[in-house]
Each structure stands twice: as C-alpha cells, then as structure tokens.
C-alpha cells in the first residue's frame, strides 16, 4: 500500500487530507471526531479577538438537481476566548499526537499582537501556523483577513513579524480576490513564509429571493457579500495553485484549497503542485466520513500505478502548465463521433451550428432510415464544445491529426518574424 504521509515545509502529516480553517474545525469535539474519521490534519478555526456573529450565515448554490455546487458564508473567526480554544487544542494534540494541528491566526496590524498570539499557540504544541490573509467578509472591513491579503506590503510586514518569533513553519493563506495572486504569494515568500495555502473564499452574492426581493442569505432584511467556495470554485483555485507552483519567485510549498470534494480533485491539486489539500465544503455537505473514500481512492490510484508515495506525484504536472504564447499553433485535434454509442440527441450539432464553427452535419442515412451526425473534419477547429455538451461519456472523442509541420508557438512565430524571417503556420 502506498505511503500517504506528506511533509509540507517541514510539517509532517499521516495523509494529505486536512480540514480547512472553517466551521468544521471550530472545537476540540469536532476536530477529534475528524481525526477519528481519518483526516490527517486540521487547521483550527481562526483565532483572534473573539467576535460576535450574526445568524443566517450560509447559503448553497444548487445546480441541475444537485445540491451545494457552490457555498458561501458570512461567518467570522472564532467566537470563543483564546484560552478556551487553546485548552481544546491542547487536549486534541495530546489525544492525537501524530495528527497535524495547525493554528490559523488573525490579529490586527500590530507587531506585539502577532508576537503574543504566536507565542501562545506555539506553547501548546501546534505543528504549524496559518496566517489568515484571506477572509473576505466582515473581518476585512476591520482591516484584517483579505484586507491584508490584497496588499503585498502588509503581507510582507506581518509575515516578518510572525517569523521574528515563530518556531514552527508558517503558512500564509491567500485571498483570491485579487488580480494576480502570484504577487501576494511572492511577498509572502519574501517575508519568510515557509508555505502558502490557497484559495480562501471568493466575494459572492448567492442569490436574490424572487418574492421578497432580498439577498440570499439576509440578516433581518439586509445582506452582505460572503465568501464563496465549494465544487464550483475548484478551477479557479487549481489555476492559482498551478500559477504559484510554476512561479520561481514564489518558490515555497503550497497547501491546496478550493472545492476539493473527492480523491480525484485531490490528485489534480497534488499534480499541479500542492503538497497537501484542505477541505471544507464537502465535509460540511456530507460529514467527516467522506475522508474514507478520499484515502481509499487515493491509495488505490497510487497502488494501481505502482507509485510508492503520494509525495512522488506532487508537482508532476506543473511543467505542462504554461503561458498561451508557448502553446503549439500547429497542434490539431478534431472531433470524432462514435456512432455506436451516439443517442442522436443532436446537441453537438446545435452547439456547433449556433455557437461554434458549423461543422457537424445531420445526414439522413438511406440504408437505415435514421439520421447520422457527421463531423466535417476539415472545418473542425478542435474547440471541444461538442464533446463537452455530449451527454454520453466517450461518444465524441477529440482525435489528434498528425501535422507535418514542426511545433511552433506564437512567441516563436513573433520572434522569427521580428528577426526578419518568414514563418508559416
């Protein structure tokens, strides 16, 4: 059986599945239940000055009959005194010494405040710290959370303050509510962070009640933007992780967060450079027990490929992620429809006809009296749209058409033209 243990910037964990700092990690009772269920680690719900929460805090986005494709919340950091949290963290760490316990921290922009809280949480034996520079609601209005994560200078300053006293590895959790996350990731790295975690939640308004004309959720007739997460944000998170993983100026390990719901999602994040993953929405939807299939599925995936350790797949696909300017303009794929499994819904035809390149014909077949869907390959631009809308997996295959031309990217082409050469596509 494959070894699932990880080492993230010096933090050891029995497996790559951690609970993210959020409602599921609010108490010792919850985190201990999670460890019993099999989670390798947990990032405790953010510690700081206790806050007052509102009621009506979460909303879910359902899509096509499936619940919780997206999720948002306006809950703030811990509402318990620091001493209570520290006592429960201490108990938890004693009961589960091999599991990874990370303290998430958020205090005001003062050196003493950071020093004080770091010393207090490290005194009870946490395995690492996560600085919450990501929370987009409430705390940001008070100059913390994403208000810090949107200012590279503030990030660097606060990381430096933490590193002045920290004995354990420091992870910086970044907000996605920013134009280019690499800039904040770089300053975290410059400030001395040992790792970064991403993404925190995205600013969102989940909906509007059609009858009451009120935001969803609302608090006594008023709503405010909340942090968006869940399966729907996965592609955004995965891109940010991959961009940071391939950026040499970032250069520190990444803990991946954002819509991870099963072992497959986890493998994608690991391949794109995350050393471990953090999960919240899927656990909130189904309970801590989902980790069983995450562990089982990941183990089977590695075993079936003869891979001895999960660390062996970390970052293995990062080199395949690049800029558009490096993509080969001479690569060509076309759609091919497998008629034996085609159910003639004609969705590929209408998608292509109305919204892409008009190359899938509906052709009457005299022999059978039925209609066939036929791709005019010479006109197909290989956009994938038909295979995306096709409801039967594997029926429309995108097939590579070998090219007799050498690979040529836009950047190479422009460079050749600038050098006075000619360049044929």
């Amino acid at each position, binding site marked *: 059986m494959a070894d699932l243990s990880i080492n993230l910037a010096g933090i050891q964990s029995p497996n790559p599945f951690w609970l993210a700092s959020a409602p599921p990690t609010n108490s010792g009772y919850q985190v201990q239940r999670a460890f019993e269920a099999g989670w390798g680690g947990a990032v405790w719900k953010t510690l700081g000055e206790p806050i007052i929460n509102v009621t009506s805090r979460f909303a879910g986005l359902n899509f096509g009959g499936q619940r919780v494709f997206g999720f948002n919340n306006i809950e703030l950091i811990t509402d318990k005194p620091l001493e209570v949290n520290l006592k429960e963290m201490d108990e938890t760490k004693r009961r589960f010494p091999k599991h990874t316990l990370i303290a998430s921290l958020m205090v005001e922009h003062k050196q003493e405040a950071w020093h004080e809280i770091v010393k207090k949480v490290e005194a009870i034996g946490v395995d690492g710290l996560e600085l919450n520079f990501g929370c987009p609601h409430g705390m940001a209005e008070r100059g913390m959370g994403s208000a810090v994560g949107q200012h590279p200078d503030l990030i660097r300053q606060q990381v430096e303050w933490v590193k002045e006293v920290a004995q354990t590895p420091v992870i910086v959790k970044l907000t996605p509510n920013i134009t280019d996350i690499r800039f904040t990731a770089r300053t975290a790295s410059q400030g001395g962070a040992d790792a970064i975690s991403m993404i925190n939640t995205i600013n969102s308004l989940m909906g509007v009640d059609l009858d009451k004309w009120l935001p969803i959720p609302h608090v006594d007739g008023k709503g405010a933007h909340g942090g968006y997460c869940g399966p729907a944000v996965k592609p955004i998170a995965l891109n940010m992780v991959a961009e940071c993983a391939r950026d040499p100026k970032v250069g520190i390990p990444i803990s991946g967060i954002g819509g991870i719901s099963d072992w497959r999602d986890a493998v994608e994040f690991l391949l794109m450079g995350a050393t471990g993953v953090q999960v919240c929405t899927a656990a909130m939807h*189904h309970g801590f027990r*989902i980790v*069983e*299939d995450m562990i089982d599925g990941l183990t*089977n995936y590695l075993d079936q490929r003869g891979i001895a350790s999960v660390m062996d797949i970390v970052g293995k696909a990062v080199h395949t992620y690049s800029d558009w300017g490096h993509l080969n303009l001479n690569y060509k794929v076309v759609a091919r429809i497998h008629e034996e499994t085609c159910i003639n819904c004609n969705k590929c035809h209408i998608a292509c006809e109305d919204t892409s390149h008009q190359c899938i014909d509906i052709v009457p077949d005299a022999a059978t009296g039925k209609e066939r869907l036929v791709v005019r390959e010479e006109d197909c631009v290989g956009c994938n749209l038909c295979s995306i809308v096709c409801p*039967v997996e594997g029926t429309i295959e995108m097939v590579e058409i070998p090219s007799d031309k050498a690979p040529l990217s836009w950047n190479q082409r422009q460079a050749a033209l600038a050098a006075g050469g000619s360049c044929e596509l």
Partner: protein
Amino acid sequence: MSIPNELAKNFAEVVPALKPMEAIHEANRCLYCYDAPCIKACPTSIDIPSFIKKIATGNLFGSARTIMESNPVGASCARVCPTEELCEGACVLNSASKPIMIGLLQRHATDWAIQNQATLFSKGEANGKRVAIVGAGPAGLSAARELARLGYAVTVFEAKEKAGGLNTYGIVSFRLPQEISLWEVEQVEALGVEIRTNTRVGEDVAPEELLEQYDSVLLAAGMGKVPQLHIPGEDLEGVLDAIALVEETKTKPLSEEMLGKKVVIIGAGNTAIDAATCSKRLGAENVQILYRRTVQEMSCYQFEYEFAKQDGVEFRWLVAPTRVLEENGRVKGLELVRMELGEPDEKGRKRPVEIPGSHFVIEVDYVVKAIGQNRHLSLIEAFGLQHRNGIVEVEEGTYRTSHVKVYAAGDVIFGGGKTDAMVVDAANHGKRAAHAIHQSLRDQKQPV
C-alpha cells in the same frame, strides 16, 4: 436457429446491467445518508452509501471491496436479494422520489471486480488453528472467507461437484448465472481455503473425524431434497423435484422434453417460482402453479410473482393434489381437491381445509414438487446436535450448537417463515459464526 439454442437464449440473464452512464447518474443521485436505513435493512450491513459514493468517485475497486467485505457473496446477492423488501425498500428517497437502484449498483461494482480480475482480499497470517466447514454454500463460503482472513487453515467439505451451493445449483440461470457464484468461490479459494468437492460428510468423511482433527466445525450443509407429497402416483415418471429441475438446467444441456407440454408446480414459494419460470423457458406450453392457500399466503416475493406472471405462468389458488394419474407408467393427469381457508395455524397463516366431494382432474404431463426441502436429519444427529424438527438449535449471537466445538449457520438453523432463508441471511450467519469461532478459539487457553 435450432431449438436448444433458442432455449439457451431463454436462460440468459434477464435483468440487464446498468449502462456506465446510468450507473454514474444513479450513484450521484444517492444522498449518502448518515446512519443510513439501507445499511440497517441489509442483513450483512453493507455500507451502501459508501460503496455508491465510490462508484461516483470512480473508485470501483474500493466499491467492490466495500461490498464484498461485508458480504462474501455480494455479487450473487446483487442479483437475488429481494431488494425492495431490504435496502431499496428502506431508501429514504421512497417518500420523496424513487429509491436508489442499490441492487443494480452493487452488481455494477462487483461486475467491475469480476471483469478486472481484482484481488480484493488477502489471507491472514497463519495462526496454526484449523476449522472444518460442512457445506460450500453461501453460509459456508462466507465463514471460510472470514476465517481465512483471520489466519485459520480452513477446509470446506462439499457434497457436490462444485462449490457455491444454492447460488451455483439452485437459482435459475436467468436470475443468477453460475459464473457469478463460481467467481465468489474463486475469491474464497484464493485465500488458501481448501474446498473438497464430491465429499459428503457422513458418507465420505465421518463427523467424528472432523471433530477430532479440527479445532472447530461449522455445519452449513443447507437443505436436502423436496419432501414427498404422500399421494398415490408420486413415483411415476414425470413427477419432478423442483430443486433437481433447476439444477439440471445449470449442469446439463437444456432438455427439450418439456417442449409443448403441460406442467404444474405444487407450492408457491421462491423455488416454486423458479421451477415455474424455468419450465416455461424450457418450452412448456402451459405452466400452472397450484397452491392450497391464496395469493395472500404465498411465500414467494412480490417481484417473483410479477416475474412469473410476465413469463406466462398461471396461478390456481385453493387446490391441493390428491392423486397422480397414470398412462403407460408416466404422468397423465392430476386429481385435485378444492380447499377453503379455516382457522389460523401456529404461524398465523389460515389453515387450508379440504371441501368434501370437490375433487376434479386436470390433464398434465409433468408434476413439479416445490413444497419446501427436507432437512439433513441424519447428519445433524451424527454430530449429536440438539435440534427441533431438524432445525439445529444454536446459541443466539454465537451460532454455537449444543456441541461445544460445533457451530451452525445458514439453512440448517432457519426456522421457516416469510423473511428468512435468504442468501444474504445465510451469508450473514456464516460471517458471524466465523467471528464467534475466532472469539472462542482466541480466548481458549493454549495447551500447557
């Protein structure tokens, strides 16, 4: 097409497997309930939401292992369990929508394991102890699998040529193809379990020998032949045993003897339905199930009743056979008497009472007896076990018999009634008996 080919088509599995897309859609429809009622409704407590979730995440290996972990004959049960009375009947979606197709999803995952020749389990480290199991049916196999994983050297004694018991021989191929049962047998053998086929305990091996040579013995011998009707003409050619009839269709080339014939089945239980649909598919022109009570008292499942009706089987209530009529030494007709329902019996079922002078005769070519099965009384007594009318008495929870070394599971301990004697119950008994044996042998003091 020649007739045997035509008949063979009738014996191909009737219910189609889920298509890949269907399986994914259905798996994603499962709510993944916590403390799910489907798990509680399953006698072997398969973690159903978990195996379905694994189908949804593409972890089919894990899904099959979850199923087979709880139920060593989970591939057969996916096909023969009365799911609407068990897991699917308990599905919370019954009240909000339609229940999840749990049986078919279970088949989807186990079919994957069969097709991919997946090795799901490995044997435990040898602990030096030996257990003999009498009977390689669902209960025996289930116990053997568990004991092998716990490190026991297990020998299974099986009277028939192949292992699998009822699943291999007694359930019609169009519901349960033999290769499914034989795959489950292979899974058990792969753990080092020795299955001695063609070996009948009590004839080829003496019970005392097992008691001497093994640390524990599990009696899981199932049941025997269909009992006598005790009516004149019963020995005529054309009077058949339902179990034997089904077995023939699973072990020999399909017979053409029933083509165009009139067949009656006596009895209305699970085996009666199998025998009736089997006869129909062997080409019988007319098949009637004769039952001395009414539709309400039948012990077959509702889905079996529906299936038989769709196969064109006719049902005649409130009649009992009184005499088989002969012509040239074989069955020519059957004399019946009409019945009415009287006072309830000890099980609460209304007792059928003969209506005097209501005899009549029907023309038939075959009479198939499906009125239950005999118990292996001599075997039970050879082990010196306490029993009630051939039902071995066991301690609740441990399956230990009156003999300290002997445990019993499956049909040998079933007491009759509507909801028992299912394959899945036998599997559960075998599994639990294995753990009780382990508990007892582990606690036993080592000899000084």
